Structure formats: C-alpha cells, structure tokens
C-alpha cells in the first residue's frame, strides 16, 4: 500500500521542521522542545520507507512491483521473521511511534505509526505475512516480445523507405 510514502512524508517533514531552529517572539534563536525527536523521526521515516517500499505478494491475484524494489525486497526477506512477520511489525511500529509523539511537529507521524501498527495487528491475526513476490516469479516477458519472434531477419527494405502514403494501404 502507500503506507511508506505517507508515513515517510509525514514523519520526515515533521521531523525536519521540528529540527530547524527559528527566531522566537523575542528574536532569539530557538529550537523546538524535544528537538531530538525530530531527528529520530526522520530516521524512523527512512527506515519505514525501506521496509515498506517493496510490495509483498497478494493473497489473491498478481501484484505490480515498485520500480527498483528487488534489492530492498531481498533485504526485507533477509531479515527473516523480524520484518516478514506482521506481529513483529506491529510491535516495532507501535514502539517506534511513541517517541515521535513527544514533539508537536512529528506528533501526527507518531500517531500514524501507532494506527499503522494496529492495522498490522489485524492483518497478523488474520494470518497474513509479507511474502516476497520475486522468489518464484518467472522472468517477465517484455511487451514487444511477440514482435521479436518475427524479427529474425532485418527488414528487406531498410529505412529510409517509401513515403508513408504509398505504403499505407493496410490502414485507410
């Protein structure tokens, strides 16, 4: 799902704003209270992005993989039950969300993590887990594959060819 992008955006943007100093009402350079939570949230946002980026296999039907997801999918698979099992994801998200709730700019992201963790809890109870879509997938046929079959010979009449209109009786 789009959890990675949404959580990443909210956590990262919130963390960034919570980390940057500003001039307060008395003209003093000030940091947000609990500014460390901003740095923490940015890091958690990145980590969530890495874990969530590769799309898992669906229970039914096919899934369209994200671009360049394969190395990350390997990484997520490699960590084993730590990332594949949804119970462990539930615990991780829940705990990871709490520190973010201490800074006002990352509070939304923190709540988002906790809500996300609850969704994982529900999925885990339903018996779902993350499965790599690539392990048993055959190499995908490219779109022009059927044409390639007939391309054993080069065209007899190499380009540039006759004007389009002259060769067009197949069309109009």
């Amino acid at each position: 799902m789009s959890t990675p992008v949404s959580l990443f955006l909210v956590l990262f943007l919130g963390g960034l704003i919570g980390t940057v100093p500003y001039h307060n009402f008395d003209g003093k350079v000030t940091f947000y209270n609990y500014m460390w939570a901003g740095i923490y949230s940015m890091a958690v946002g990145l980590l969530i992005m890495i874990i969530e980026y590769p799309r898992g296999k669906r229970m039914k039907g096919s899934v369209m993989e994200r671009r360049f997801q394969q190395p990350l999918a390997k990484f997520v698979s490699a960590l084993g039950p730590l990332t594949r099992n949804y119970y462990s994801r539930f615990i991780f998200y829940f705990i990871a969300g709490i520190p973010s709730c201490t800074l006002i700019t990352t509070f939304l992201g923190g709540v988002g993590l906790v809500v996300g963790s609850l969704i994982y809890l529900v999925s885990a109870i339903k018996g779902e887990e993350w499965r790599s879509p690539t392990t048993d997938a055959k190499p995908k046929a490219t779109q022009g594959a059927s044409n390639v079959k007939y391309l054993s010979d080069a065209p007899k009449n190499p380009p540039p060819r006759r004007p389009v209109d002259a060769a067009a009786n197949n069309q109009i």
Partner: protein
Amino acid sequence: MNCHPQVVNWVVFETQSPIRQYLSYQARLRKVKVPSSQQLNNLLRISRLDLKMGVLKNEVPSWIALFVWAGIQVGLFGYYFYYFHTDPRFAYTRRILGFGLAFARAPANCLNFNCMLILLPVCRNLLSFTRRYLCKCCLRSLRRLLDENISFHKLSAYAICFWTTIHTVAHCYNVEQYVAAQSSNTGFSVGNVSAYQLSSLGTGQCPVSAKATNWVNPICDRNSHSVLEAFKIFPAVSGIIITLTLIVIVFSATEFIRRSYFEIFWFTHHIFVIFFAFVLVHGLRGVVRSQDASHDVSYCGDKFSDWGRVENGVLVEPKCPLPEFQSNTPSTYFWIIGPIVLYIIERLIRFARSFQKVTISKAVKHPSKVIELQMQKDGFSMEAGQYIFIKCPSISRTEWHPFTLTSSPEEDYFSVHIRIVGDWTEALAKAVGADEQEFQDPSKMPLLAVDGPFGTASEDWDQYEVDILVGAGIGVTPFASIMKHMWYTYIQSKENNVGNCKLKKVYFYWICPDTNAFEWFSDLLGHLEDQMDEKNCADFLTHKIFLTRGWDTNFARNVALHEEEEVDVVTGLQQKTNYGRPNWDQIFSKTSEDHPKTSIGVFFCGPAVLSDTLHAMSNKHSSADGAKFVYNKENF
C-alpha cells in the same frame, strides 16, 4: 513455408510509422528501449503545438476554468495573508505568533474554498441535472467541462493537501510559540509589550474559559509540554483528527489501490464523513483572538504596566484599558454547508432510487462469458452513450457497479452487456440463471436497483457533420448505443424528413487486444451493416478493427490465405481487420483531406494513454481553413 513469417513481418512493420519502425530496428540492434509512439507524438506535438485552432477549441475552456480556480486561491491567500499580517486588531496575537498567524489563517480560507468545491464534482445526479436543464443553451465547450469532473475532484484534493500542509505546520509552530510564551521569563522588558506579558493576561484561573474576553494566549499552564497542551485545545484535537482522515483518504486513493483493492479505496473514501464533521466544528472554539478597537495598540504598546491601572477612580491612561479579546467569527460554515446539503440530497436520491422497481424483461447469454440484461423501469429515459449504476441487494447491499447502456433510446427497453470477470458479476450471472440451459421466468429474476442514467460527452455527437469514434478495449461499449442511435436518427431524417440530422458520415475505430471478449459487439456491427445494405447507405459508417495482440504465426497464415475473400476471417464483417496499432497521424490527415472545412467530432473511450494521443492529434490536425477536430472523452 518460410515465406509466411515474412508476410507477418511485413504486416507488423507497415502498421507502424517509418520513424518508429526505424527506431525499433535500431533499438533492437543496440538493445535499447524503444520510445513509444506516445513519446514520439509528444515530440511532434511540442514542435507544432503553437496557436492552432484545435488548441483553442479543445483546451481553452479548461485552461480558463483552471485559471479562475487558481486565481481565486491566490487571491484568497494574498488577501488574508495581508489582512492577518497587518490588521492592528491582531497585533497582540501577532506579537506572540509572528508570521505563524498569517501562515495559518490564509491557507485556512483556501481550504474552505476547496472543501466547498470538492463535493460538487462527485454529485453525479447534480451534474446530470446541470447538464440537462441548465446547460442546454450554453456553449458545448462549457458542457464538456462537466465531463472533467473527476479530474477536478482530484485537483481540489491536491489543493487541500497542499494548504493543509502549510496550515498544519503553521499551527504546530503556533502552539509551540503559545507554550513558549507562557513559559518564558524574559518578558518584563521596558520597551514594547512582551509575549510573556501578553500571555499572563487572564490566566488567574486555569483553564481559561472560552467566553472570557481577558486572555489572548489559549495556553494557561506554565512550563508545560506542547503536545499535552494541544490536547486541551479543541481545534488542535479536531485538527489532528481531520489531518489523519485526510492522510488515510488520500493515500488509499492512489491508482494502485483503486486498481488492486477497490473496496479498500471505496470504504476508506467514506470516512470523508468524519472529515467534514470535524471541519465544520474545527473553528467554532475560536482560539485565535483579536483585541477590540477601544485599546489603541500604537499608543499603548509600550505602556503595559499602565494597562487598566486605576488611580483615584480614573484610568491612568484612558486610551489603554485592559484589552478585550474576541474570537474570530467562524466562517467555515458559510463555505461548506451548501455543498454538504447538495451532497445529502444526492445520497437521498440514490437511496430512493434503490427502491424503484426494475423488471428484467430478458436475459441473453452471449459467447465469451457475456450476459445481456434487458430491463424496464417506469419513468426511465435515456440518451445514447449514457451509463447507469446497478445494485443487486441479494449480492451486496452497498455495491453499486457502473455499466454502459447498450440499447438506443429508440428501443422500448434499456440493456447492459456484462462481462463475467469478477466475484460480483459471477454472482449476478448466477442470480439471473445464466449457468442454466433454460432461462428463468421473469418472476424469479433477482431484484435490481438502478441509478441513472448519467450523461457523458457522447451526447454531443449530433453537433458535427462527421464523427470519428474510437473505442479501445472495454471502451467500445458506449458506442454500441451511440451507433445504433446515430443510425436510427440518420435514417429517419433521411427517409421521413423527421428531425434535423447534421451527421453525414461516421468513422469507427475499434482497437482491441482480442475480439473474443467482444463477440457480441461484432454481432451488433454485422447487424448494422445488414441494415445499411438494405437501405443503400453503406457509406454512412466506415469501421476499422485493429487487433493489437492475440494473434500468432498460425493465425497470420490463416489470414493471409483468406486475403481474397469478401468477408473478414475473424469477425465475418465486410471490412477487414487490421493488425497492430493504428497510425493516427495518417488517419487524421486522411480524414481532414476528405472533409475539408468541416467540424469533426472525435469521441474516445478507453485508456488514458491513447486519450492523450488522440487529444494531441485533434489539436495537431485542426486548422483554421481545413477540418476542425474537436476532442471529446468518455469517463470511466
């Protein structure tokens, strides 16, 4: 037998443009990616776009609408930013919040504006009503704008996300400032009144009461924590809820989720009810405050110690009483209550429609898992190219599924063709008894509810002398109804001089990966062909079928062997099937040569990529003194 693959080879190449052909050959040699014909078309489009007639006709109305919409927002933002940043009534709030005030309030008004707009494009009955009754007289281009409803819904949604980001960030900053101002001890400066001094006003009693006029800083506790304090302010709590629902709605509406998990998209989109409920009450507490005019800011700003100080029964500084603070008048109500009422009416109409009686007069089983339902309903009147929503309560009480009408208005029933591809359609086929040999009698048919019909751009086909219809894949369905209707109208005006039919000629391009799924459609085309032969009007309709996939060497051999025969091998129609994709450049320039100085309507239903190509083609091949192509698109 070596020659046959060569024939195939030739066919493949000639259906592509020479540029693309050359590129693909070169690319295969070098193993690089072939630019799609879409990309090539874009290249051509950029160089020839300029100020052509077609651009004017096709694009200008939507550009104007976009411009007005964006202009209003820029105006709202500018006006309110200036107002909140300069108005002396907000001077003391601004002393604490600085730019935070204007950056929170200006986007709030843009949010009101977009929340007002976002519900309107999804009121399909309202749109249908507008199109039918209010816009009959208006320009066609204005009516065509109504077909962009979903694009506009999305556009407003993006705008809401954008302004929400600014609004939320600004208010996070504001809460932090309020808390900091209440906690700072640096405030008793001699000069201008300090944020801390202002914050100390009216905090004798915590929490501050909403009705009291003596406070400006809603945070009451000293040295508290911003997140904890935010939970004590209602607008902050409702704001968190609104933003969370917005995040869920937006990120469950991405194309991937709509395509793969439609139910998730559909149900999460309905938490918009929570969204609007909290948007309505978000501003009611009025936490951002302005002081009244009796307290002169420019004079009293540096006399904090004398504010409201009474000596011998008189004010020491008569111009400087203790300032009285008032809440902003909540305005969200005025913006969004109208659309909410309209939307509720819309849902009531849908609800009422689900109780109207629909009789299935006939169910027909077509080859390739397609069933046709012919239905009747009191007071149902349709136009060609429209669609309806069908609900079958015995399958699901909540699901409404859209289907294109395939009957023409001249017929005494309305029909849909349903392809059995998913859970719902399978259940429906079972319910009407499609898996049994004999069909059930009408009394045993399941109850259906029908909402609609709803209009689309194809209602405009009679405005042009020549029409080009392009249906790709499942997108051919609306053209079943439209072509039947065109034919009936044409032959009636020709034979009986009934009505005034501008239309002279129809080109129909049908592009499909394989014809199997649409055998019923070629039946219909064949039927039309017969009728036209009977009336000696074979010229009226020219249709071309392009088979893009689903054929191999054997198939091609078969086609090559039957090259000389009268009818097509695949469809049995008089016009031969083409293989590969159509060369639009050629088709459009040929058509404009054949019909100079004519206004030509281009109607398309199918995938977005092809829609863009055709749109670009319409613009490219239109000229002031030649043919004018006007592009129309169906929405699904």
